[in-house]
């Protein structure tokens, strides 16, 4: 072969390249080039994807990076990794550059690296330019100096004088100087094309990126744009022709490529070894911990348990994964020691070892879960353990523990590559093309609609509706460019919880960068890249419900004197299941949504596995796959249990013949179509990719041929294929559902038995879940909980529990006062601990942090009413006093500490309506009566039925309901149907709006806070809906919390 491209940048040079690494490899493969080097700017962001794509097409992927040199007028130096040591040095150099000083001495990092002198931005070109290009002596002198400097750092054998030819006079003049310098210093020449895109047409995308990078439009970018479209991958023949006068520059590409022995195949990543005592090995240590755990978890510890655990341990030993398990166990132990709630989710729940080590909470042996889904020798894939932690500070503590344990250069978060999607693409392209602001807005609103469409009549119609003619060249160009930059990386973010750790230095495996959050570092690869590179990741994910459970347990400990252990909650508590069956599940994890609620009365769960199914069944996968109704019918015994094929009975038996879980689909593929474990895994991976239609088609063909071979034909075959393909986007693994079901059960149990603690905890962890705090408070009150208002003499910053004659009650915390800063709130609580406040003036004097506006809000919500316990005041009185107290009297009078007393305020007491308005405006809720209670008489006259009374109305009757709209949903799977939840003082009523009724009443539905709905009631199996036929906004003279809208 004649030529190998050794200087190519991908879109992972972030706005300096226009093609994804896969596209570069595809074109390289088409040209028959056996190798190629990816040299992205200041990183190896795209190298994992480049390597992966290259491996598939048997192209050798060389690794390198363009290093931005400091102090050389922005010169960039292309470096190629010759050996593993070179790669290690490259990673460390880039890490050093990102993390610390930009001015770095390159000498310590030079070993194993080959340096090219660079293209237009290279140090050689910059030096020649400094001295003058055309015939200038100075240019040659400066250039020679720069080249000698590189030789000094990298050694004579490791510096190549790079020549690029893009048909540009100035570049050619520099090339002539460079050739002369190379000859005088006896340095080899090497030809490259300084590639920035795969195809010539992608020059337009590069120009757009240049504009984005420089905040210009195409019209004003001028000479920042490319001069021509020559920076694409060129065929070896073309390159040979271009460099026909310098054949050695072409020949040297092949020679240099053969020298570059390093590829990412030889990454050298090792998961860290867990330190054990002398005489102990990691596996022996693990066996001991597992044995201890098993004896605790399994009572009795039967032969079945022993066998499964032994099988898992031997596989772990065989795959040398004992260190990984010990390290995850170590994190879990840290959490336990520090009272941080932790629970593994995902496929780890399939492992008995994880269960007995306390990493997961689901017993996989008891639930007969498939261990191979987690770990299999055949698959050759590393296991994935995800840990759920309470969101917020506790999770951060766990993350910081990992950093502390493995060092800031030994652990890092995985990256999250933010790519251009519909809206961001259209906004940026629109700006670059110079569209004005109104047009930009209209175009970006259209963005979502074309994202998954080809240019077609529908698209033209959509654009026409918004006043754009798709045939107009500017609009056409806009569309083409938007499509062109779709999925190209925009910048690097941080994954929410993925952490990787390494034996030794992680920065010698992949460069690290500082994250925006202090104390965190991010690797340059995302989680898929890490998985492809066989780097084991531990996900430390924040889960709001974990924080709620943790806080609940603490509150129970403090106020009930009981210690609740989530692992030992009473199983199958019927009181809890009774509540769940009634769909009285507001605030409960995963089963509180409107769709879940409408399913629960049909499902009638009465033991844990029912919850596992419940969590998994209300998912787009089963809904789109039309598996929900068959399952429920079979469960209600309205339909017999049948199987697509008798072979599948063992797999589908426990879900009544209806496939619901990902594991079942894998097993179905294995049994029915004879897929191997590896093929089934490939099938699962294909599910994970959006728009992987071609892959899905290939798999379907293989499925069908496999089933034909097994004699499964006709409708049975169609049914199986349909089941499998409908999970394309959202398959839900059984083990994951089981872990979530545990949390769902725990939240339900705690809500049933410790309502006050659960309510306080969930109010303290907002925003989370499906409902607003106002709805949560009203729900708790309907269940008999007394919720006390905010009071500066009692409230802490968070919501707390109080014990009095009414039992345990919730006291709303100061955190719910809008406009009250946390510093002022905590200062208030601290001052109160020093002694009770005697008056508003005393409060204002002692808590200096409180601003006037904050005092006013506190007075308006009645939080200052009880400062004088013997003589409570009213809100207006407090407001009257606050206005005076906030006018400081000056140091002389203040120090006397004497309040200037006045008679009673001349203001009237607030009416109940005014109090309600003040509560909603300033806290987003009220602990007083529901707004609908105030207009109940009027509603009665209109024949409106209360939410609680709907259950008594027979199916099919016309009813009228009214309430505050707390949620509006228009799920993508519901074909335009809209679901509304209306809350009144007795509970929540549900309304279904058909697409045509929605279109007629769109404004009323979208904008009304309080709605009146008339329609036919659907009261079947205790699931109650009103099918809206007529809707009206109602004037309730009170504000309401904004509804939560889900689309």
């Amino acid at each position, binding site marked *: 072969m004649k030529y190998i491209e050794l200087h190519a940048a991908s879109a992972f040079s972030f706005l300096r390249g226009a093609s994804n690494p896969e596209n570069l490899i595809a074109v390289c493969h088409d040209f028959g080039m056996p190798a190629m080097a990816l040299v992205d700017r200041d990183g190896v962001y795209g190298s994992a994807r480049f390597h992966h794509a290259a491996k598939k097409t048997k192209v050798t992927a060389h690794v390198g990076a363009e290093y931005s040199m400091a102090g050389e007028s922005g010169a960039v130096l292309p470096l190629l990794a010759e050996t593993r040591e070179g790669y290690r040095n490259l990673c460390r150099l880039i890490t050093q550059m990102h993390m610390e000083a930009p001015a770095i001495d390159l000498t310590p990092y030079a070993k194993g690296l080959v340096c090219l002198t660079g293209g237009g931005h290279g140090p050689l070109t910059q030096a020649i330019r400094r001295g003058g290009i*055309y015939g200038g002596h100075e240019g040659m002198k400066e250039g020679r100096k720069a080249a000698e400097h590189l030789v000094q750092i990298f050694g004579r054998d490791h510096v190549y004088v790079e020549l690029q030819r893009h048909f540009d006079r100035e570049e050619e003049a520099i090339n002539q100087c460079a050739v002369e310098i190379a000859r005088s210093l006896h340095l080899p020449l090497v030809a490259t094309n300084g590639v920035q895109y795969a195809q010539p047409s992608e020059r337009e995308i590069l120009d757009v990126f240049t504009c984005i990078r420089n905040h210009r439009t*195409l019209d004003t970018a001028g*000479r920042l744009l490319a001069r021509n479209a020559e920076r694409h991958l060129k065929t070896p023949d073309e390159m040979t022709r271009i460099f026909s006068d310098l054949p050695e520059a072409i020949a040297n590409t092949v020679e240099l490529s053969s020298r570059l022995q390093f590829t990412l195949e030889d990454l050298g990543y090792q998961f860290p070894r867990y330190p054990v005592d002398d005489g102990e090995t990691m596996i022996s240590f693990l066996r001991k911990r597992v044995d201890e755990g098993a004896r605790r978890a399994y009572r009795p510890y039967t032969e079945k348990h022993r066998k499964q655990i032994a099988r898992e341990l031997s596989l772990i030993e065989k795959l040398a994964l004992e260190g990984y398990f010990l390290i995850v166990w170590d994190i879990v132990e840290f959490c336990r020691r520090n009272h941080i709630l932790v629970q593994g989710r995902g496929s780890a729940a399939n492992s008995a070892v994880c269960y007995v080590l306390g990493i997961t909470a689901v017993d996989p042996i008891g639930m007969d879960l498939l261990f191979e889904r987690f770990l299999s020798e055949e698959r050759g894939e590393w296991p994935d353990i995800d840990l759920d932690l309470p969101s917020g500070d506790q999770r951060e503590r766990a993350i910081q523990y990992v950093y502390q344990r493995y060092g800031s250069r030994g652990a890092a978060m995985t990256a999250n590559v933010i790519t251009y999607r519909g809206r961001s693409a259209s906004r940026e392209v629109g700006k670059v093309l110079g569209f004005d602001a109104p047009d930009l807005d209209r175009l970006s609103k259209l963005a979502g609609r074309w994202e998954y469409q080809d240019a077609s009549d529908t698209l033209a119609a959509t654009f026409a509706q918004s006043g754009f003619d798709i045939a107009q060249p500017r609009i056409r*160009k806009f569309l083409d460019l938007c499509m062109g930059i779709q999925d190209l990386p925009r910048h690097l973010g941080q994954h929410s919880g993925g952490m990787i750790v390494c034996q030794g230095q992680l920065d010698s495996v992949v460069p690290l960068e500082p994250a925006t959050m202090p104390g965190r570092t991010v690797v340059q690869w995302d989680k898929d890249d890490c998985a492809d590179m066989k780097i084991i990741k531990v996900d430390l994910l924040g889960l709001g419900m974990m924080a709620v459970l943790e806080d609940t347990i603490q509150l129970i400990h403090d106020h009930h004197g009981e210690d609740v252990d989530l692992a030992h909650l009473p199983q199958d508590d019927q009181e809890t299941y009774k509540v769940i069956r009634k769909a009285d599940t507001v605030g409960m994890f995963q089963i509180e949504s409107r769709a879940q609620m409408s399913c629960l009365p049909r499902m009638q769960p009465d033991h844990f596995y029912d919850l596992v199914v419940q969590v998994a069944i209300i998912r787009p996968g089963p809904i789109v796959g039309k598996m929900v109704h068959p399952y429920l019918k079979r469960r209600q015994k309205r339909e017999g249990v049948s199987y697509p094929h008798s072979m599948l009975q063992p797999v589908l038996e426990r879900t009544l013949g209806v496939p619901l879980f990902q594991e079942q689909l894998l097993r179905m593929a294995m049994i029915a179509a004879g897929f191997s474990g590896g093929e089934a895994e490939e099938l699962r991976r294909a599910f994970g990719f959006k728009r992987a239609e071609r892959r899905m088609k290939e798999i379907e063909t293989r499925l069908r041929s496999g089933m034909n071979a097994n004699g499964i034909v006709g409708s049975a075959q169609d049914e199986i294929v349909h089941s499998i393909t409908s999970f394309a986007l959202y398959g839900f693994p059984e083990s994951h559902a089981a872990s979530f079901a545990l949390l769902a059960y725990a939240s339900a149990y705690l809500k049933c038995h410790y309502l006050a603690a659960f309510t306080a905890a969930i109010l303290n962890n907002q925003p989370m879940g499906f409902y607003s705090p106002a709805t949560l408070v009203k729900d708790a009150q309907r269940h008999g909980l007394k919720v006390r208002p905010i009071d500066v003499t009692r409230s802490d910053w968070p919501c707390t529990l109080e014990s009095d004659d009414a039992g345990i009650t919730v006291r709303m915390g100061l955190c719910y006062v809008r406009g009250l800063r946390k510093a002022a709130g905590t200062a208030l609580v601290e001052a109160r601990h020093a002694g009770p406040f005697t008056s508003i003036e005393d409060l204002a004097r002692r808590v200096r942090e409180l601003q006037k506006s904050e005092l006013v809000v506190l007075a308006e919500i009645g939080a200052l009413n009880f400062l004088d316990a013997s003589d409570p005041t009213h809100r207006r009185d407090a407001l009257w006093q606050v206005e005076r107290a906030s006018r400081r009297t000056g140091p002389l009078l203040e120090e006397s500490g004497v309040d200037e007393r006045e008679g009673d305020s*001349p203001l009237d007491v607030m009416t109940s309506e005014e109090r309600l308005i003040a509560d909603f405006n300033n806290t987003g809720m009220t602990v007083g009566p529901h707004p609908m209670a105030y207009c109940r008489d009027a509603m009665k006259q209109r024949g409106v039925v209360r939410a609680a009374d709907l259950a008594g109305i027979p199916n099919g009757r016309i009813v009228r309901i009214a309430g505050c709209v707390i949620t509006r949903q228009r799920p993508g799977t519901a074909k335009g149907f809209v679901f509304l939840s209306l809350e009144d003082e007795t509970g929540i009523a549900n309304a279904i709006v058909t697409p045509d009724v929605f279109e007629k009443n769109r404004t009323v539905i979208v904008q009304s806070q309080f709605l009146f709905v008339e329609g036919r009631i659907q009261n079947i199996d205790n699931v109650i809906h009103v099918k809206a036929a007529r809707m009206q906004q109602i004037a309730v003279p009170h504000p309401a919390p904004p509804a939560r809208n889900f689309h």
Partner: protein
Amino acid sequence: MYASIHTPDFPSSHAAVLDCASAFSPRLEDTADNTVVLDLDGLERLFGSTTVIAEQLKRQLLNLGFTANIAIAANPDAAVCASRGFTGITIIETSTEARRLKDLPVHLLPDAEAEPEALDTLRRWGIHTFGDLARLPVKSLSSRLGQYGVRLHRLARGCAMRPLKPHMPSLHFEESVDLDDAIVLLEPLTFVINRLTDTLFHRLQFRGLAALEMHLQLKRERPHEPFSLSLRLPMPAQNPRIVARLFALELDAHPPEAPVIGIRLEATPSKPRVIQNGLFVPLYPEPEKLELTLARIAAIVGRGNIGSPELHDTHARGRFLMTRMKYWKNLKAPVTPEQNAQTTIALRLLRPAAEATVRLQNGIPVWMAFGLAHGPITTASGPWTSSGDWWNSQSWTRQEWDVELRSAVLRIYQNMATGRWYAEGIYD
């Protein structure tokens, strides 16, 4: 007594309301966008009783097409509140203000818009009307809202007294003339414009001002649309002769093309520019005179052909813009030629480029001919390709070669869109 005119529905016609009010009294206050207050002191002898004045005001405004609320009270603010709160004509007798105003909502208080916080406080206190506010003890109010609270209290009781803020008409410099006989020749037209310019500049001079922009509007017999000319002067001008001459040159280049029956001249005033020249700084020509000279040249060569050339920031060859000369500032072109283009040979550009015939062999030019030379090409260096403007209709792509003929070294290029060849320049 004071009368307040409130036109809630006609804020855009406020100037007309002011004009109408000024016909009744010279002592008036432009209180807000839709409110005007007049001092009626002494007007009884001219117009009659306050009731009669109010009715006449209402009638006059009706004639102009506005409906207005008119209120008369002993102090301006009580009149304003009443005109905002009551429709039609309201006359409040002295000492009855508090009783008459008590049901008005507090947001009508004259200063409420300026102090929204105070209004919020009143809302929180449950104070909704003037009466509610008037009932509060003034001492307590003062300790909470300060002097502003005391003022609000007085306003609510209708007993706040203050002098009017007199309305001053804005500075507007315009001169116009309607002609009895249409002017058809430029010379008499210039004569009239000269006279108007003189008057206008005198007026400006009285106020110590100069003109930064001048707008001339000529009313034509046909077509009816007026003919407009504007001069944007490089700096504030004080010399009417030069401005008139500039108009004359403009009119010479762009005549109104119809008989003129009216002339309106308007000046945008500005402070005159005062310069202290340095002793050793070379003197620039007087800007006004230079402007005149440029206008004279522009009249000869065309407006688009005079100014400072500025290179267009693009890879496209030969693009430049003519911009207005910035002769009194340091000249610094925003776009500099390519740096480092320290070529040792000069290229003499052919403008426009001469079309050429070129023969190729293996993609390399081997023979060419154009107007100045022809023959075999001995050396060809290239191609140098460039393209751009792909996002608009000016999209271009070309391939350049440097070629050596026996007689000359040339730069030639091929327009890739049309396939045509051109000789662009000759190297020295």
